[in-house]
């Protein structure tokens, strides 16, 4: 199985291991990666993307911690069976929330670029805080 990982953007300000985690989650959500399928090994993936192997290892550990993949000793990393469906439902629900928010922002006369910046600002600075912007 050859998952098409994209080169992470090192200059985006988002840690590379988080970008990898997002890619794996996205691949599972779109069905590109299915339960039981194997992910590339840490070393080949690091070489392919020309990024630090410790970064790949960190992403895999985090994904294992979230229960999304299983690290089997000596055998590699595998997509676990449970999560994908549930995540897909969450993502669909999330899309609806975001779409509604965007509609309301557009109604207030905000342009696409301004909306994008608002989202990025909130994601960048206040992760997990659930705080309202002034």
């Amino acid at each position: 199985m050859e998952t098409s990982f994209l080169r992470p953007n090192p200059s985006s300000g988002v840690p590379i291991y988080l970008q990898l985690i997002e890619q794996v989650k996205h691949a599972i959500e779109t069905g590109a990666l299915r339960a039981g399928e194997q992910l590339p090994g840490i070393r080949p993936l690091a070489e392919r993307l020309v990024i630090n192997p410790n970064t790949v290892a960190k992403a895999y550990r985090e994904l294992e911690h979230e229960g999304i993949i299983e690290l089997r000793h000596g055998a590699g990393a595998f997509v676990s069976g449970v999560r994908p469906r549930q995540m897909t439902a969450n993502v669909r629900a999330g899309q609806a929330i975001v779409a509604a928010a965007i509609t309301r922002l557009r109604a207030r006369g905000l342009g696409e670029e301004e909306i994008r910046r608002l989202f990025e600002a909130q994601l960048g600075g206040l992760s997990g805080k659930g705080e309202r912007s002034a």
Partner: protein
Amino acid sequence: MPEAIIEATNLRKTYGDVEALRGLSLDVHAGSLCGFLGRNGAGKTTTLKILLGMMRPTSGEARVFGRRVSDSVASIEIRRDAAFVGEDKPLFDYMTVQDVIRFTAAFYPQWRQDLEQYYLATFGIAPAMKVKTLSRGMRTGLALVLALCRNARLLILDEPTSGLDPAMSEQVLQALVRHVASAETTVFFSSHQIAEVEQVADRVVIIDRGRTTITAALDDLRAQYRRIHFVFDDDAPAPVFRAKGVERMHRDGRVLTVLASAGAEGIVEEGRTLRPVSVDVVPVSLKEIFLESSGVEG
């Protein structure tokens, strides 16, 4: 704490009236690919030469593999166990690539013959080529092949991609990534290509004018550094933040910009008590952090 392969404390080096290093401290952890960033003349090469015992510090102390670099016996052991590729690459011009490799291999019992062909092919070097006919990129490539095949525990590289085209730079970086992934190796490499450090390094040491300004895991820098813009109805106030992590503040009319090295949430919260009309938080790239820590306004 991970084991420190390199640790330097309060290094000073003066050449006549010039202070090249002014109390530089750093550490490099085992197994890391650590980038060493600084402007030209910041003291990168001087630091690397001191670590390898090729130059003595005026004061201060450094240890590599726990051995003191200023001890002449220990420094021979350091050079035996650490491979160095400097900016000038002394190679025997009259030899062929194959001869240079055989000649070098004879000195190192742990020589990785299995890697020779792989790396030569990667860098597009034919074994029968005369060293004097190699292009600049191939010369760097050959110096790296010699360093990588020694199977050293530590690779110290002074601007390994300087003067290489982008494709060749990428191959060099890939070789380094492959090397740290496959062996118990630590790599400490200087560079002023911030993008390449961002791409492959897991840790970074930034120096400016002979002093260390930042030693950190890159992911921590990315996760913690933020630029916060507070926009006010009227002229921006000049608050004194109680929250930690404020590196720099800049007022421009109604806008107050704060560069935070940590705790952006706390700073935002505190800033909100000043009743701004809007708050904007944006990530900061390593390039901006570098410029900021080198005293260059971003």
